[in-house]
């Protein structure tokens, strides 16, 4: 067994039982056309048990230029990609210039080309052959297909796009740079972009979620937000008092189902996230707060009323906001976007499932055809993902990260649909290889809960969204939820308030 010497170049050492079977220095990527911005590193193939992994770690302290920070460089680091995730490797051997390879993952995404400054492509492929099953593509002798037994020649016109690695969450110092002295967000697009790539540290979620959801306007000042909070609290309490004091006969005429809905809410609240310390134990006061907010919402928007799944959507909001009225108004803002998920005629869900089928058709046509042949085009197996924004699929901290990323509406309002495609693409081989029928697929998808790699999904979703471009946007019919909340409604509200 051989252990890598990590003193100078590489920042990582191999875990116990891992064997480096291939190592090449000066393997370089060219992120831009500028020679000064190339990043060199060490490429390794590592065998652990029966699995083969690839790593590429850029060298530290390549102070060749100031434009590429350490952070940029680490974006491209490949820590350990198992070859089970690799679909194919394409070899390029130009007569002039360096040889390079392009590694395409089974999700359809690719890493940037690796240029072998010191040669070694042949040796790389030969080593790989010893450890994983590869076949040469019939269409292109330079393409080596890995682990693909169904479609050995499926390699097609893949455009090389890859999602950026995630950044650390937005912290206090950086958050301050987005605000002017009075608390306005100076560049909301830049803020949304920043959050899209890394989320927010938990302590700032309270402030940031209210902005992302559109409860507070980005250009509001600290004072204006405080003022809105005050007035909204009074408004909330007024609405809450109405149903608490009992429904008048007139109201009962408009809303005959309130008692029934209230019963449903009571039933669901005691079954929502009870394993979390924030909601556990008997007589936990937070359960009463959940219950009051949902009942008030039900009264506030009785066209929609209460529907199962809403308690899942409210739970993290209350956990973050830790204030009843603030949580209520953030929930109202969220429901402006997601309310159609709960429409009585299920039109909101149907249109999203339809859009999802269009996106899969565009981005993974073999999978689409498979679903078509197997009577799975209704995409009901993704129902839970969409209805409650993956709430049951991730543990709480990861879920909050996902939600704030989706809520930025950066790149697309429908990033959640691209996330669905990203997950399906990740399991493309299993779904088709095991020839899952509708029932098996439903069970498989339900049981993915807790096993989905969030960062990978976000990265793939971003890449898929970029890759799909205009065609992707055109696949999603207009009016598919979540539509953006009406702009300026809040600022209008407190311009009235603040002129008093």
């Amino acid at each position, binding site marked *: 067994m051989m252990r890598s010497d990590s003193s100078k170049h590489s920042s990582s050492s191999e875990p116990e039982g891992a064997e480096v079977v291939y190592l090449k220095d000066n393997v370089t990527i060219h992120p831009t056309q500028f020679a000064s911005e190339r990043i060199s590193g060490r490429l390794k193939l590592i065998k652990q048990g029966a699995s083969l992994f690839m790593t590429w770690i850029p060298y530290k302290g390549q102070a060749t230029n100031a434009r590429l920070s350490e952070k940029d460089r680490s974006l491209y680091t490949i820590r350990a990609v198992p070859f089970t995730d690799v679909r194919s490797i394409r070899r390029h051997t130009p007569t002039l210039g360096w040889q390079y390879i392009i590694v395409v993952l089974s999700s359809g995404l690719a890493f940037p080309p690796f240029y072998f400054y010191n040669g070694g492509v042949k040796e790389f492929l030969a080593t790989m*052959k*010893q*450890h*994983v*099953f*590869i*076949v*040469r593509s019939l269409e292109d002798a330079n393409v*080596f297909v890995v*682990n693909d*037994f*169904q479609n050995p020649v499926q390699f097609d016109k893949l455009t090389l796009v890859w999602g950026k690695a995630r950044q650390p969450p937005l912290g206090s110092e950086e958050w301050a740079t987005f605000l002017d002295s009075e608390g306005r967000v100076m560049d909301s697009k830049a803020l949304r972009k920043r959050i899209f790539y890394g989320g927010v540290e938990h302590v700032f979620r309270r402030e940031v979620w209210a902005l992302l959801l559109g409860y507070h306007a980005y250009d509001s000042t600290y004072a204006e937000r405080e003022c809105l909070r005050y007035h909204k609290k009074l408004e909330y309490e007024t609405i809450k008092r109405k149903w608490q004091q009992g429904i008048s006969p007139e109201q009962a005429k408009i809303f005959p189902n309130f008692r*029934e809905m209230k*019963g*449903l809410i009571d*039933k*669901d609240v005691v*079954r*929502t*996230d*009870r394993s979390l310390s924030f909601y556990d134990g008997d007589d936990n006061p937070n359960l009463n707060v959940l219950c009051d907010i949902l009942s008030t919402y039900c009264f506030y928007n009785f066209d929609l009323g209460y*529907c*199962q*799944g809403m*308690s*899942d959507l409210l739970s993290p909001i209350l956990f973050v906001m830790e204030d009843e009225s603030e949580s209520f108004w953030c929930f109202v803002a969220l429901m402006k976007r997601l309310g159609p998920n*709960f429409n*009585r*005629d*299920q039109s909101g*869900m149907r249109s999203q499932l339809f859009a999802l089928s269009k996106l899969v058709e565009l981005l993974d046509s073999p999978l689409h055809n498979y679903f078509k042949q197997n009577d799975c085009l*209704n995409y*009901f197996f993704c*129902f*839970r993902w969409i*209805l*409650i924004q993956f709430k*049951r699929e991730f543990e709480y901290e990861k879920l909050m990260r996902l939600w704030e990323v989706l809520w930025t509406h950066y790149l697309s309002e429908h990033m959640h649909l691209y996330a669905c495609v990203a997950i399906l693409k990740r*399991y493309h081989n*299993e779904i088709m*290889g*095991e*020839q899952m*029928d509708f*029932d*098996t697929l*439903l*069970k*498989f*998808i*339900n*049981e*993915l*809960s807790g*096993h989905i*790699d969030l960062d990978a999904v976000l990265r793939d979703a971003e890449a898929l969204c970029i890759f799909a471009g205009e065609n992707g946007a055109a696949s999603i019919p207009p009016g598919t939820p979540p539509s953006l909340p009406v702009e300026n409604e809040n600022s209008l509200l407190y311009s009235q308030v603040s002129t008093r």
Partner: protein
Amino acid sequence: MTGSSSKGGNNSYDYSFKILLIGDSGVGKSSILLSFISNSVHDLSPTVGVDFKIKMVNVGGKRLKLTIWDTAGQERFGTLMSSYYRGAHGIILVYDVTRRETFTNLSDIWAKEVELYSTNQDCIKVLIGNKVDKDSERAVSREEGMALAEEHKCSFLECSAKTRENVLQCFKELIVKILEVPSLLEKGPVIIKQQILKQKPGYQAPHNGGCCS
């Protein structure tokens, strides 16, 4: 990283039955299922969408594969859930003995859904009153349950998913009834045939050191 696979274990069986659990939200459909499948009972989140569990059982000398479908209880999801009724051999209608409205909704809503969506004419139904462990809060009498069952020509049992009292019997009652109906049994072997077809080797097992030049 993958979800747990439903494959593996001994896959041979004489018949495969699809069973559906329906009824109002919070009556304990998921709890009855969990109690039946894993002998354990704990607090469950409200079911969103639909899920199912598989259990192999031996009844009357026959090895049976049960696919038990658990559905969301809110009526609003009905239109999407309707497709899950397709091909069901048995339907368990559940109410909560401590909440009268869950009992009345069985005739008002759920029995109608069954009539509307169930494609199997001979499909067996069982009426179940759950939560008998809360006897002091009982709001629906045993006699009322029996009368409703008679009206809809189905069997009736009371059970408690919490104490597991009568849970096994509910399923057994249903299965024995299904086994008595020849038209339902015909569907079993068909499903097995499909499964065998599907299991034919679709691809070569991966092997190391394959050649590629």
